[in-house]
């Protein structure tokens, strides 16, 4: 790997790879890039892999998707199935469904490619979601990374769009009912809904245009946008350099980790093959979306227990939770002679709208409340930002309640409970779940902080029980080494910032609101132990004199 040293000229490279690199460099001049990146340092942590999983799933989606386009025909013209799956022989269906069946049964390896594609898509959205949770709970979205957080949010929306457009393409019964639901939701939009529905479907539902149109979006527009966003995302990762977890030797001014070449590149590159291998294993062993069981789309039948792909679940669940009629109040009513369908409009748009609005604006909200305009490159341990962690878990709980509601019928049949009761409970949880989650999470985070504080003050429990001369039993605590100690105490615990006057000497109402939020954000806090406190804790605890020698090593 003499590549990095090609920057210095004139010289003769020692290895073949080096000479080749030199050849390319003399013609296109990439040595500056190599010098910058060849040994660039990346911090290492298992939780940094979720973003990589997303990236690699996307690469696998591009590869398997390209294969599928060679055989898929998005036409909705009528045809009669003549392929080798006998249960559907001679059944009338669209050309799109016909070609999806052919890919599954008559193209060698086609079923495998379909399964790889679908599993990779599910994993893509899942890993994006988990990656964003990691970024949120560790505070990685703080300055200077707010814009990259927004790009990530856009990627999440695009991923869901890619998923839904792809899910609808085979034109099977299940995906057709999914489109039917989308059509119903679009029609509920005031004033323009009917028009949008007619434009999208090229006339009445289902029409003969929708599959072809979704196909263009699915294979051209959406992936191109995803690719563009990924490029922007990674570009910004390079500009900012990666964040790192707190620990000894790590601060906002440095980045500690492995150099890109060779060890980090090997680990990350090897990880691509591992992701691919795991997806291949799932595609080999677990059937996903067996379209041949569902049959071609027909507006009349529907199977019980219909489920969307998991990432659309929270919207579907919200649709299920919303009551259409409460006592005698109908959520659909006539206003100025026109129909307003709030029982569809509210659940379809409001929860998703709230989730994404909060997601996109959260970095600025927190920055406003905390007045923290510094750059952050060291992550927070979630427990050390209890209010943020509680907000995140509350939002996540809200999402999960809606997501669970999308399976309300399956919950009812599996656990032999009344479907109506499941819905009533989930409706209640929709409102109180996030509140409970917030309170519990905040208390857990504070308790963990207190535990850290106790350990940093009194050392770790050794499990050794000692009987003192006067008969008392105590457990001996051993002090931590300075590196572990620093991990527990090396964090900031900001105090609430009271309202401050502006340049005219006036405390504005907005500033007062900010101060109130700041108090709410920071009033419950556990300060890290200071050296003086540790000193004091050791001198008052006379029983610890047993561990006298170890104690001395700590009071440096």
């Amino acid at each position, binding site marked *: 790997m003499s590549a990095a040293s090609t920057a210095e000229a004139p010289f003769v490279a020692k290895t073949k790879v080096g000479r080749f690199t030199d050849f390319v460099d003399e013609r296109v001049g990439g040595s500056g890039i190599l010098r910058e990146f060849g040994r660039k340092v990346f911090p290492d942590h298992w939780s940094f892999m979720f973003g990589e999983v997303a990236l690699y799933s996307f690469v696998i989606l591009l590869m398997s998707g390209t294969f599928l386009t060679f055989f898929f025909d998005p036409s909705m013209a009528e045809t009669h199935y003549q392929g080798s799956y006998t249960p559907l022989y001679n059944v009338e269906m669209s050309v799109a469904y016909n070609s999806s069946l052919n890919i599954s049964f008559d193209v*060698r390896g086609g079923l495998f490619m379909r399964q790889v594609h679908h599993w990779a898509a599910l994993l893509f959205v899942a890993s994006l979601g988990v990656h964003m949770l990691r970024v949120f709970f560790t505070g990685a979205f703080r300055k200077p990374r707010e814009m990259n957080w927004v790009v990530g949010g856009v990627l999440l929306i695009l991923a869901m769009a890619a998923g839904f457009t792809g899910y609808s393409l085979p034109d099977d019964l299940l995906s057709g009912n999914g489109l039917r639901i989308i059509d119903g939701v679009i029609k509920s939009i005031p004033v323009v809904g009917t028009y949008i529905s007619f434009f999208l479907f090229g006339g009445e539902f289902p029409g003969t245009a929708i599959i072809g149109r979704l196909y263009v979006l699915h294979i051209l527009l959406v992936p191109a946008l995803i690719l563009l966003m990924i490029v922007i995302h990674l570009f910004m990762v390079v500009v900012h350099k990666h964040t790192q977890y707190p620990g000894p030797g790590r601060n906002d001014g440095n980045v500690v980790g492995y150099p890109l070449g060779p060890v980090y590149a090997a680990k990350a590159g090897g990880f691509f093959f591992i992701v691919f291998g795991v997806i291949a294993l799932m595609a080999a062993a677990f059937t996903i979306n067996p379209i041949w069981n569902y049959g071609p789309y027909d507006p009349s039948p529907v199977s019980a227990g219909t489920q969307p792909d998991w990432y659309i679940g929270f919207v579907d669940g919200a649709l299920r939770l919303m009551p259409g009629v409460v006592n005698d109040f109908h959520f659909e009513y006539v206003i100025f002679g026109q129909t307003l369908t709030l029982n569809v409009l509210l659940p379809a748009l409001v929860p998703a709208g709230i989730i994404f609005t909060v997601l996109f604006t959260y970095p600025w909200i927190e920055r406003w409340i905390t007045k923290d305009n510094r750059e952050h490159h060291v992550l927070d341990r979630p427990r050390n930002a209890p209010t943020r962690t509680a907000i995140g878990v509350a939002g996540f709980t809200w999402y999960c309640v809606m997501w669970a509601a999308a399976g309300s019928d399956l919950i009812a049949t599996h656990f032999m409970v009344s479907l109506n009761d499941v819905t009533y409970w989930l409706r209640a949880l929709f409102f109180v779940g996030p509140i409970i989650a917030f309170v519990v999470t905040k208390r857990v985070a504070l308790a963990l902080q207190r535990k850290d504080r106790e350990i940093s003050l009194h050392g770790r429990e050794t499990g050794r029980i000692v009987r003192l001369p006067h008969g008392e039993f105590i457990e001996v605590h051993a002090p931590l080494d300075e590196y572990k100690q620093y991990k527990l105490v090396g964090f900031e615990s900001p105090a609430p910032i009271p309202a401050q006057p502006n340049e005219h000497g006036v405390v504005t109402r907005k500033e007062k609101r900010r101060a109130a939020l700041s108090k709410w954000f920071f009033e419950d806090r556990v300060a*890290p132990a200071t050296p003086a406190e540790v000193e004091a804790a050791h001198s008052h605890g006379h029983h610890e004199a047993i561990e006298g020698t170890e104690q001395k090593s700590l009071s440096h």
Partner: protein
Amino acid sequence: MGNHSDGSPNHSGTVATAGQNDVEKFQDPGLPPHRLRLADTDPKAAKRAERQVAILFGVSIVGTLIFLGAYFAIDLGVDSTIATIRNQNLLLGLGTAFAMLGIGTGIVHWAKALMPDHEVSEERHAIRTEEDRQAAVRIVDDIVEETGIKRRPLIRNTLLGAVALAPLPAIAVFGDLGPRPDDKLAHTMWAPKDGKLKRLTRDPDGTPIKASDVTIGSAFHVIPEGLNELHEGKLNEKAKAVVLLMRLNPDSLKITPGREDWSYNGIVAYSKICTHVGCPVALYEQQTHHLLCPCHQSTFDLTQECKVIFGPASRPLPQLPIAVDAEGYLVATSDFKEPVGPSYWERDEHERRINS
């Protein structure tokens, strides 16, 4: 937890120690000392790791061979069964999985066990320098100045106007993505054609249904006569016209005034398209006379003219007025008296027009 044998109150530290300065903080001890791996000190261990990596790469080669074997040896001929396809899928998948996991785990093991694992520290640099910033601001100022856009508001304003209007053709073009809705959603195939009433026929084969075939407690999935003969827009019509036909004890039906002649001997027909977002309301609970939509669990009570009793739907299922023709077959006496399916902005307007 703390063991305070003297019973003194535990200082939980929940109270802020305001203004922590650097003296009160622990100093960063720096990176912990590097710990050597077994492979760094023991050449035997390094050799072993090398062999393990090679074996993993070997597994990958075996995986590729499994894939190729499964691809060429298993033929998807005319007489291939589902079992053949499933086996081939399994072997292709396992082959790929071995091929990929072999390479992946091999490289990662190589990196972790044999490549240098010294963590290094690199300085972060400011995203921009103050010098760059000032130069950039100057450049932007100069560019704006050279265009003269501030001094020539006429140019600026006409440009803004032109740019604002330019997307209009695009919107106009998109307006032709589909036809205007007009009142297409207000009508279905059930409307009598040339004075001839449409028979209720079975879905999907299209055979007509005699009133005497419909016993109490039975349910039929119904399409209008002539649907199967359509070629253009068959699914569009079906998506509006599908109906559920059921017979109940006539005494259990609560009939509102004006609908007395919409049913026949306890036989009632309701639109199968849910008034929520349009899924087929395909589940009929015979005992309770409830219709349930499997998509979002809207529940309709058949005895109360399909009033919503649970779930997200807000409007009853539209009823199809039916009667019996001279040959004893069930027919629709008219189209639905309201638009079927999910609600839309112009729905009430359409309903009023139908009934006027």
